[in-house]
C-alpha cells in the first residue's frame, strides 16, 4: 500500500485523521497516486492539481524520501521506498505568507 500524508486543511476537507493508505495498480508515479487519491476522495479534486491541466497548484509541494519531487515528471516512477510503503508520499502546503 502507498502511504500518503496530506496537509491539515485537506485532511479536514476529506474527513481524515491521519495518513491515507492507497492501493495503486501498475507503476507507482505521482500521477497514479494522485489519480487514486482523487478517485477515493473526490472533494480533493482541484485542490492539489488544476482540474483541466492537471498541473500542480503553485503553492503545493510533493516530498518523499527527503527529496522535493515537485518538479519531477508526473509519470516518472517514484522511489521503491514509496512504492512499497516504507516511506510516505507527502503533499505539502508550501511555506508562504508572513
Amino acid at each position: 500500500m502507498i502511504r500518503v500524508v496530506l496537509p491539515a486543511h485537506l485532511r479536514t476537507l476529506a474527513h481524515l485523521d491521519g495518513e491515507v493508505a492507497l492501493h495503486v495498480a501498475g507503476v507507482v508515479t505521482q500521477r497514479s497516486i494522485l489519480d487514486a487519491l482523487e478517485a477515493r476522495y473526490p472533494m480533493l479534486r482541484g485542490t492539489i492539481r488544476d482540474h483541466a491541466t492537471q498541473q500542480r497548484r503553485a503553492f503545493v509541494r510533493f516530498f518523499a524520501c527527503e527529496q522535493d519531487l515537485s518538479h519531477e515528471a508526473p509519470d516518472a516512477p517514484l522511489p521503491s521506498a514509496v512504492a512499497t510503503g516504507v516511506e510516505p508520499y507527502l503533499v505539502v502546503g508550501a511555506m508562504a505568507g508572513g
Partner: protein
Amino acid sequence: MSRVRVLVGTRKGAFVLTSDGERQRWDVSGPHFGGWEIYHVAGSPADPARLYASQSSGWFGQLIQRSDDGGATWQPVGNEFTYDGVPGTHQWYDGTPHPWEFARVWHLEPSLTDPDTVYAGVEDAALFRTVDGGHSWQELSGLRDHESGSCWQPGAGGMCLHTIVQHPTDAGRIFVAISAAGVFRTDDAGKTWCPANHGLRSEQIPDPTAEVGHCVHRLAMHPSQPETLFMQKHWDVMRSDDSGESWQEISGDLPTDFGFVIDVHAHEPDTIYVIPIASDSEHYPPEGKLRVYRSRTGGHQWEALTSGLPQHDCYVNVLRDAMAVDSLDPCGVYFGTTGGQVYGSADAGNTWTPIVRDLPSVLSVEVQMLP
C-alpha cells in the same frame, strides 16, 4: 416573531450570527472552514436552510460548500469553473493582452425561486451558473464574449465580477458589475449582455465617459422599485431610474463619495445607506470616524449615523459585499469591517451595536430571515 441569521465571510473562515427578532442578543457560531478565505456566504431566498459558501485559499484553490440545514453541516460540491470555449485575453494592468484565468469566486447569488440554481461571479470576470445545487457550473459566456471583453482591465483587487442583481419578477433580467469594466445587463437570462454605464464619469480612465471601463464597486436595488438602481462607484454615488440606461450622481453632501458598500432599506425604496471611505489610497473612514450615511430622499441629502460607532481613531475599511439589511420592522442594517467587527442596527441605522468585535477581516455580510 421571525429570527435573523447573519452570514459573515472573513479572511479566515465563515461565521453565522443568529438572533430573535429583537436583535439584541446574538449567538455566534464558527469559524466554519477555519483558515480559508470565505469571500461570500449566501442563503437561498426560496429555502432558508440552503446555504452556499465560496471557500478559497492561495494554496488549495477554490471550493464551494453547500449546507442543507442552515449551516449546521456542510458538504463540498462542484469546484470546477472552466471558461466556455477558448477563453482568449483581456487587458493586463500594463495594457498587454492577458489570458483569462480563473482565480476565485467572489460572489454567490442564489436564484430567487429555485434553491438549486445559483449564479457565481468570479475573477477573472465571468458569470457562472449551476442548476443542480452546485454540483456543476456552466459559464454564461455571452457576457465575456461581449465585444468589449478583450478590453476589460483589472482593478487593484483583480478583475472580478462581484455584484449580481436579479430582477424580482422578470427572470430574464440580471445586472452584474465588474471591476473595472462596469455594469452589464441581460434581458434574456444571460445569453446576451449590454453595457449599462451611460452617465458614469471616471477620471481614472482615458475617456472618462467611456461605455466600458468604470470601476463600479457595488449595486443595490429595492424589489418594489426594480427600475431604480443605486451604485457606489470607485468615486461617486450614482442612481439610475431607467434600469441602467442612464445614471445620475447623487453624492450630494457626503463628506467623500469614495466607498465600497451601498444598500437599500427593506421597506423604504428611497432610503439608502453608504459608508464613505477617505479615498482610493486611504481605505479608511475620513477623520478616523466610522460613519454610516443615510439618505431618505434617494440621494443628494445625507445624514451621518454615528451612535454606537467609533468616532475617533478608527481606520478600518468596509468592503463591497459587507453590508446587508433584514426585512423586519424596523429594518435591521448590518456591516462588517476589515478590523473584524460586525455592527448591527435594529432601528434602521439610528443606533449601532457591535455584534462581534474580533473576527478576522470581514469580506462579506449577508442576512437571512428565518420563520
